[in-house]
């Protein structure tokens, strides 16, 4: 329980108190089974709750951290039970079932017992290393030293061997930890494509042959106000520097993220998307007349929001922070794993800053000549207004180009290799996917002297009539360009991808997809419901009530069935005095040689197994004989017998110790 000292100390107290108290319970196999059921239910519930709160990949380490308290019922049954082990078949439903069946059939089934304490100790070690404060450099050496100390005090022999073993274990632990971290990062990246999001750079498939594959899972859900239509495109990020198979942001000084301005309007706080605007513009951005829609989706730290290109302001989002860079990319630090809020748009402003004259008109040298040819061919210079130019380009792409996800254009990694991927696309193959169209349009506009940028995001196209909302999936991911409209001092969206791309999307209406959608929807709705302040209190109270109820029930049952540990353990049913003989002192030594005595094996028979290794075997026979008489003969013992047995036991003990 690293990082949670209170819980850890409480657990340790409960487990270790067993040594100081004589309070015991007579737990049988059924009780072990019940404790295991309780444990599995607790683990299941905890896993579910943690999974709902984060993702599966993140949930596993957290569940491991919480394993010690979750496994407490099992350890409790062992620590406070009369036996010092648990039957193995407790842990498997099938084994338990088989055992019951065997009992019914009268078949002999000897049960393997294990000491759960060892397992619990391992769980504690594992849970500790997964804890919140376990990343310090001192943690692993500390754990190793503590374990070494524990082992040394428990076994007390062979410090050198222990040191070597612990060193090896320590090295393995370091390697294991590094490996686990790597694995978790890798899995995390694989599981959610968004965690790999970089607001400063995006790699494209331009110049790389292959098939564009995207996840069909729902990313955002958008609910427009009644009788309004949603924006066609939602942007997540914008880039302005074209490189081989990638776009990034230049100059680097403009990459920094800054907190959004907030403004109170009619007692509601708004986040203003456009930066450094005046009072008038801010008022306009929160205006009542602006169309608005509700945006809902899972988010974690630094998740980019998908917003319309002319987004004005945001409200109702529960966030720890929200910031944007000069390119208009907005990212959030949410309070909870699911966020929801209202987006106001058509504010006649752009979230991004005005263009940077050099960077937003820059064309890589190898492309220049080819682009000049294209611009000339289209007679763009002859078109008087921006709208005319855009119309010409749009028509050209619609007529001459074909949309495909099966990419065949291949070029080397360098833009200087001719023909470039862009040249192949524009002049030869004339087939590609949105990244080609967006990149090409951006470069053509720049060649025509119009500042343009490359934007990525989603197309809003799938309406869910049942829920009166639009769903945005991974497969709706899109790229287009942002054009600077100097007349209105505003950036506008310009999408040149032929409209046919919408028809090429893979069918989404599979049973699996529908199930995934429903689960995602349920999960998000549940979280939003739970996170509302009023519900949060109710949920906490409800869960606490259930938890306390179960705890109370278990405690009551336990309290009723408790019993004191007698000074000597006797078999059930006999309450009379139990005679101790000096030979009983041999039990600990004999256990080291013979292992623990099975409950049904008489003491004398068990000790006789020591015979082959003993020189004084006659002494053993005699000692056992006197022991039996003292122990089981109700007649009063002879006066010297006890002394003689003491002497024999001492002699035997020293011989057993010598080995």
């Amino acid at each position, binding site marked *: 329980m690293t990082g949670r000292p209170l819980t850890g100390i409480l657990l340790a107290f409960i487990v270790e108190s067993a040594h100081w108290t004589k309070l015991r319970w007579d737990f049988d196999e059924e009780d072990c089974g019940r404790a295991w059921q309780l444990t599995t239910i607790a683990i299941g519930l905890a896993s579910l709750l943690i999974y709902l709160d984060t993702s599966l990949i993140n949930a596993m380490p957290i569940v491991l951290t919480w394993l010690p308290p979750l496994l407490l019922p099992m350890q409790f049954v062992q620590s406070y039970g009369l036996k010092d082990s648990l039957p193995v078949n407790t842990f498997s439903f099938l084994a338990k079932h088989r055992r019951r069946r065997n009992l*019914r059939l009268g*078949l002999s*089934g*000897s049960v393997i017992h294990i000491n759960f304490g060892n397992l619990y100790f391992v769980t504690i070690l594992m849970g500790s290393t997964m804890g919140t404060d376990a990343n310090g450099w001192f943690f692993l050496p500390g754990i190793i030293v503590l374990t070494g100390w524990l082992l040394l005090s428990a076994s007390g022999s062979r410090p050198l061997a222990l040191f070597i073993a612990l060193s090896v274990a320590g090295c393995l632990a370091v390697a294991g930890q590094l490996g686990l971290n790597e694995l978790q990062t890798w899995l995390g990246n694989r599981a959610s494509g968004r965690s790999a999001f970089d607001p400063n750079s995006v790699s494209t498939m331009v110049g790389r042959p292959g098939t564009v594959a995207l996840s069909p899972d729902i990313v955002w859900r958008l609910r427009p106000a009644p009788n309004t239509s949603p924006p066609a495109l939602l942007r997540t990020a914008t880039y302005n520097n074209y490189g081989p198979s990638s776009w990034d942001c230049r100059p680097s000084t403009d990459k920094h993220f800054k907190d959004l301005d907030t403004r109170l309007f009619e007692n509601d706080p708004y986040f203003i998307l456009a930066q450094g605007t005046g009072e008038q513009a801010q008022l306009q951005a929160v205006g009542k007349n602006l169309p608005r829609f509700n945006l809902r989706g899972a988010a974690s730290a630094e998740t980019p929001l998908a917003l319309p290109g002319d987004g004005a302001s945001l409200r109702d989002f529960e966030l720890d922070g929200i910031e944007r860079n000069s390119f208009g990319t907005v990212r959030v630090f949410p309070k909870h794993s699911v966020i929801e809020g209202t987006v106001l748009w058509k504010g006649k402003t752009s979230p991004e800053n005005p263009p940077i004259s050099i960077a937003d008109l820059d064309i890589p040298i190898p492309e220049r000549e080819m682009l000049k040819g294209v611009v000339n061919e289209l007679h763009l210079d002859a078109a008087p207004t921006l709208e005319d130019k855009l119309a010409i380009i749009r028509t050209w792409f619609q007529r001459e180009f074909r949309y495909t996800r099966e990419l065949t254009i291949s070029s080397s990694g360098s833009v200087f290799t001719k023909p470039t991927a862009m040249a192949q696309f524009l002049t030869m193959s004339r087939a590609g996917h949105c990244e080609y169209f967006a990149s090409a349009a951006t470069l053509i506009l720049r060649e025509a002297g119009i500042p343009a940028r490359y934007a990525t995001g989603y197309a809003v196209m799938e309406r869910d009539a049942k829920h009166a909302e639009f769903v945005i999936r991974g497969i709706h991911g899109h790229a287009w360009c942002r054009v600077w409209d100097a007349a209105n001092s505003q950036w506008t969206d310009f999408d040149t991808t032929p409209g046919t791309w919408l028809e090429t999307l893979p069918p989404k209406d599979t049973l699996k997809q529908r199930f995934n959608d429903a689960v995602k929807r349920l999960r998000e709705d549940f979280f939003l419901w739970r996170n509302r302040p009023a519900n949060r209190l109710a949920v906490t109270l409800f869960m606490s009530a259930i938890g306390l109820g179960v705890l109370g029930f278990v405690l009551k049952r336990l309290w009723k069935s408790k019993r004191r540990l007698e000074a000597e353990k006797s078999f059930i049913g*006999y309450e009379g005095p*139990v005679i101790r003989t000096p030979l009983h002192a041999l039990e600990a030594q004999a256990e080291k040689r013979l292992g623990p*005595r099975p409950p049904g094996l*008489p003491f004398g028979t068990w000790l006789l197994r020591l015979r082959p290794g003993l020189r004084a075997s006659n002494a053993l026979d005699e000692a056992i004989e006197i022991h039996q008489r003292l122990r*089981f003969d109700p*007649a009063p013992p002879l006066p010297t017998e006890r002394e003689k047995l003491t002497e024999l036991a001492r002699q035997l003990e020293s011989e057993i110790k010598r080995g």
Partner: protein
Amino acid sequence: MSISATAHRLEAAVCSIVRGQPEVVRRVLACMISGGHVLLEDVPGTGKTTLAKAISKAIGGAVFKRVQFTPDLLPSDILGISVFDPRSQEFRFHAGPVFTDILLADEINRASPRTQSALLEAMGERQATIDGKRYDLDSIFFVIATQNPVEFRGTYPLPEAQMDRFAMQCSLGYVSAAEEAAILSDQAGTHPVDLLEPVVSREEILELMAAARRVRFSEELRHYVVALVGATRGHPAIQLAASPRASLALMKVSQALAVFQGDDFVSPELIQSVAADVIAHRMVLAPEAKYSGAGARQMIADIIEQTPVPV
């Protein structure tokens, strides 16, 4: 002459006839000393009858009677019958073979349950009630019954109540090759049991029985006996569990066995050694257990293994 020497003499005499079975012989003799009866269940030819004969011959003055149980055997064939004597004009009682010291009930499961049950009172209470009149049996009344477990045709399984009257059920089983060769050479001339001379008297047997009753039995071990027998009750594989009579028999047989061991108190090892012989035959297994191949003796062994023994 000490008690244990008498016991050993008897044991040695019987063992000289019944070769290679010292443990069974001792347990059967202990059963007799404890006042119980024994059921020998074994395949034919393993020496069941020889054992019974050897015991009776080794005891001087002991009356030995043998009844071959057949389907047409009647209760009066065992207990006796009152016959009208025309001379004295009254009924005269002709005692049946049950009035004896040692009774060999050979192939007991061949007689009808009615006849088998004629033995109930005799075995349980050492008395016989015939025509409303009670007759006490001999003080050493020891029934050795045999039955053959492989034959089912024409046999009547013993009723549970009858099974419960037997203190022990054990089997002789096959002996080692060397012992079997020795048996062959023993019987080359005459059967050794014919040559066996009595080694103990009836009175000595009665003394042994009294000595067995005097063997000390600690309170804790009484609880152990009850725990062992009690474990058969509530066991999911056992339909009819062992009765308190089983606990009593287990105590008495262990005491008698202690006499043969030369001990004057009972140890848990002794109880464990005879527990299966004393308890297993009284139980009726649940049908699924019966057909699963589980043995009652193995179940008792499991119970012994799992019941905590006083140490």
